[in-house]
């Protein structure tokens, strides 16, 4: 955690400590249980799940459910597995994250270092847009995408995610640049650097940490989005989350729990991986989104 520099000076007794540790471990199990159980059961053949104990380790471990989830499970009309939808999600997330982060960086730069009358209003309006319930924009967005011929397409989804991602990315960069010494910008001006030159040569090279925070946040949010996907993606551009939901909710045939679990873990894998590799930045992003406006 970014601010986790010192622990408390409070001292606790021995029994107190034992109690505290017990509670902490109990909750650790509570948080781990669903994912752990899913993982175990995704390696079992179906009868072992329906007829057995979910806590038991697989007697005949198999990777078939994973293979099925990835490439043969029936989602919608075709038995393609999650593979094409995984690709959809990647194709949607990468440009959406890149564009919204870049715009956020430029916006934050302008809003802190090149202020103009009314910059507070602009920022306030952007900030509020981070929190609106997206139900309020669903109908007009559906109309507009239809008019633009982007309904049910990846570019349409990318546009939606960029537009509603700008608020947060601007927030991150604005707060970061606000703490960046303005004297540096002034020095660069006297040195003869212009608007973009200062951004490229002075600001961007020190924006690494916040860029990582912003990219992770946008990546997680857009990857995990369901509402926009289910509303605007149609069948061809369907992202991972919507495909997973369709697979799990499909009422035809036998419920292949083991395949569902494998699919759920596959859907969670990219964000989990990011979390494991860069958890520190993930937490910082969560904090930055909530603590300072």
């Amino acid at each position: 955690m970014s601010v986790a520099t010192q622990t408390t000076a409070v001292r606790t007794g021995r029994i107190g400590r034992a109690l505290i540790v017990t509670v902490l471990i109990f909750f650790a199990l509570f948080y781990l249980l669903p994912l752990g159980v899913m993982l175990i059961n995704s390696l079992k053949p179906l009868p072992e799940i329906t007829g057995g104990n979910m806590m038991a380790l697989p007697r005949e471990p198999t990777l078939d459910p994973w293979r099925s989830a990835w490439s043969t499970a029936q989602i919608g009309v075709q038995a393609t597995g999650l593979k094409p939808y995984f690709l959809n999600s990647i194709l949607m997330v990468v440009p959406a994250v890149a564009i919204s982060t870049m715009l956020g960086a430029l916006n934050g730069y302008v809003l802190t270092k090149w202020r103009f009358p009314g910059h507070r209003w602009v920022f306030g309006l952007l900030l509020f847009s981070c929190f609106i319930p997206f139900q309020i924009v669903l109908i007009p967005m559906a109309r507009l995408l239809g008019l633009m011929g982007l309904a049910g397409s990846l570019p349409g989804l990318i546009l939606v995610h960029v537009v509603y991602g700008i608020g947060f990315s601007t927030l991150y960069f604005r707060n970061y640049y606000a703490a960046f010494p303005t004297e540096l910008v002034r020095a660069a001006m006297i040195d003869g650097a212009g608007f973009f030159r200062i951004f490229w040569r002075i600001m961007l090279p020190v924006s690494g940490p916040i860029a990582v925070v912003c990219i992770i946040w946008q990546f997680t949010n857009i990857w995990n989005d369901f509402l926009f996907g289910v509303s605007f993606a149609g069948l061809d551009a369907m992202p991972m989350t919507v495909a997973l939901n369709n697979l799990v909710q499909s009422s035809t045939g036998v419920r292949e729990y083991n395949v569902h679990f494998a699919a759920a873990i596959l859907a969670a894998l990219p964000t989990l991986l990011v979390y494991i590799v860069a958890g520190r930045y993930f937490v910082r992003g969560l904090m930055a989104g909530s603590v300072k406006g």
Partner: protein
Amino acid sequence: MSAEAMPAATSRADLRGRLQDWLPRLVLSPSVAAMLVFVYGFIAYSVFLSFTGSKMLPSYDWVGFDNYRRLFGLSAWTTALVNLGIFASLYILISIAIGLMLAIFLDQKIRAEGTLRAIYLYPMALSFIVTGTAWKWLLDPGIGIENTMHLWGWESFRFDWIKDRDMAIYTLVIAAVWQSSGFVMAMFLAGLRGIDNEILKAAQIDGASNLSLYRRIVIPMLRPAFLSAFVILAHLAIKSYDLVIALTGGGPGRATELPATFMYSYTFTRNQMGVGAASAVIMLMGVASVIVPYIYAEMRQGEDR
């Protein structure tokens, strides 16, 4: 003094200078335009639709407050509101209670703090759809926790809330708390780490017991964290859609219908766009009533930065 780097009117003399003056605003303008159209313009359009008799497609016949009157006459909507009330209050309360407790406990120089923190927080990285899928199955009495208890010999154990109309809403609370209480923990932990240790030492010298130390000094100092947690959780609760879809689909019956699912089904499957728009407007007002004062306070606080 303001921190602006550049007076608006330096070097008006040459064209290049003039361009430089306008460049910042030029760079910001696409974002501002997008925001004005896609956020505020769309809000205005939805508000407008909520006053029309739109069904499957938008129409422009003005019907005044008819949609709102119909909306509040629908038992599905009032059920959704009551459900939201139960869900939101329990979700916020329990998440804050668990988050605060874990944060305080983790702050006691626990050896594996980093690992535990990571474990508590990882659900926040998951999609609600994944969370829903996992819990849907854990809560399924036929193969989930209830079945396991039976197999372990506790035959009378019953945990079938997800199939029970009266209890299903609480399963939403369980899954949602599982997903976000770790996040609340992280917020409180950051707050705790921000408290000056000398204050704690002073209180201990004053003879405060651990309990009164937390009750009288530490927790009151965490006020900003409480406020942030409340705002974040409240707006998440109002927006909750994915989790319901994945966990219960709004059922059994309408037992877990929330405004977000109501809006979606009325607009897109029942072709009552006017009513759907009206429900979205009510949701927006709910979120705004929590967020606007918060943003306003934060911006005022930052006035002199």
